[in-house]
């Protein structure tokens, strides 16, 4: 059975390709690299990731709110997804 976390990371990469800045390819970003700090996305692009996670994984952010730190890297987003789905 494939590693669920790895699947989430692959999905995130595929999604981030649609929102990344043209001169910052997603493939050059490591799992733990800061997405905003690496220049891949703008800090306000978090909302696009939020919308994606809601649609794809049915995560509801209304109760717990959106914590930008959980969106800092692909790894931390994957952890968030795994946590919410557990």
């Amino acid at each position: 059975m494939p590693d669920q976390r790895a699947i989430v990371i692959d999905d995130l990469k595929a999604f981030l390709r649609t929102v990344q800045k043209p001169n910052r390819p997603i493939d050059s970003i490591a799992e733990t690299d800061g997405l905003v700090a690496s220049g891949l996305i703008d800090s306000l692009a978090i909302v696009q990731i939020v919308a994606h996670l809601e649609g794809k994984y049915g995560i509801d952010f209304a109760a717990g709110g959106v914590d930008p730190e959980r969106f800092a890297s692909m790894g931390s987003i994957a952890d968030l997804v795994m946590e919410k789905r557990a």
Partner: protein
Amino acid sequence: MPRAMSLSQFHENPDVIAAWLRLFGPAIRWSTPRRRRTLLAAGAVILLVLKPMALMGDIRGEAAPTALACSLVILGLLAFSYVSYLAAVNFARLPEAVRKRPQIALHAVYWAVLAAIWLVAPPHTLLRSILVGLAFTMPFLVWRCGYLLLSGQRGRAKDTTFADQLMVLFPVWGGSNTPYGKGLDYLARFEAKSDEELARSHLAALKLFVLAGLWYLGVEIMNGVVYGDPQHKLTLALGGLGLGIPRLAMLTKGGSAPLAMAWASLYAELVNQVLRHAAEGHVIIGILRLFGFNVFRNTYKPLLSESVVQFWNRYYFYFKELMSELFFLPTFARRFKTWNRLRLFAAVFAAAFVGNVYYHLLLREDLLVAGDAAGLWTAFGARTFYCFLLALGIFVSMVREQRRAAAAVEVGLARRWLRIAGVWTFFALICIWNVRGGGDFSSRTQFFASLIGLG
């Protein structure tokens, strides 16, 4: 890490870091994270007294507070800080209504103070003096306590001490009502843990101080050469040969100038504001970095922004973050979840319009204490319109950015410069309704009309 780096990246150069460590080794080794935090906490205790005294010096239209009233206000602020800390640490045990809306609960305390002034505090009494003192001083604290509660909400305040939180609530590094460096949990993420990290943070501070000096110099050159202020040393040295561009505030108040000069004034004001704001922010963040908190700078090349939203992100980072965390993200998470465009619109307007207007409303304690609704409208008419235009511009810009990202097309240099010019023009124009001392809404709007040939 490559050894060869540009001069501007000197703070990341291993050779420079090693040299800094050799030069300041003993001082760096002495200043452990614990000692640095202790110094900042000690400074915060001093500031707990000095800051409210300075803020209460602005009280107008009310009797000046006595020494007793001042002391009680300071005790009140300390109590407010400590209760906020306890609420953050024990967040899970708070009543459900507070847990659901902690920020509203926090601001309700401030509005309760104002309501008490309006309704129950007789003039010339100690009670009124204390309440007025609190009304003038709490806005500085309330946003910082907001971050503290947010930290509690996210479960990150439990293991913190009040002394550590106090250093953030009364920051030695300065700042406005906007918390530069956000809250303690954000600062902790950027805190230097080793000698090398501290040396890097020091060098990053040094870079900001150099930049701040350059930008202050730029402001002075603008005052002398661009504006030709009559008493300015540079104007006198040039024998009055400056460009003589009028100040924007003078034009928006009803002054006149040829059309080209009026447009030049608009762009000059934008550049001037950015330089001043960047210089002030660099000093504040520079001090934070000296203490080992190597956080993002407050202003990062906003004049090179290629979109309105990018400019907003880069011009006043910590204000944008405040609006984003307390207004934008909560609205986005809760409202209009099935209507994508409306959802984004609501979130942007919650931050850039509602939050922005509200933040600036709390800066006019004098009018709030007086309950002067007409005065507030006079003071805020133009500002409200500015915030509306800003929010609209950010929303449109975000939608366009999303489209651009989806298209993933690289653009040429000419196109990029065109975008930058567009961003300059947008912010220069909306500045008409924001420039300080620039008259009322009507005179500002008349100036705008004259710019486009309608006046």
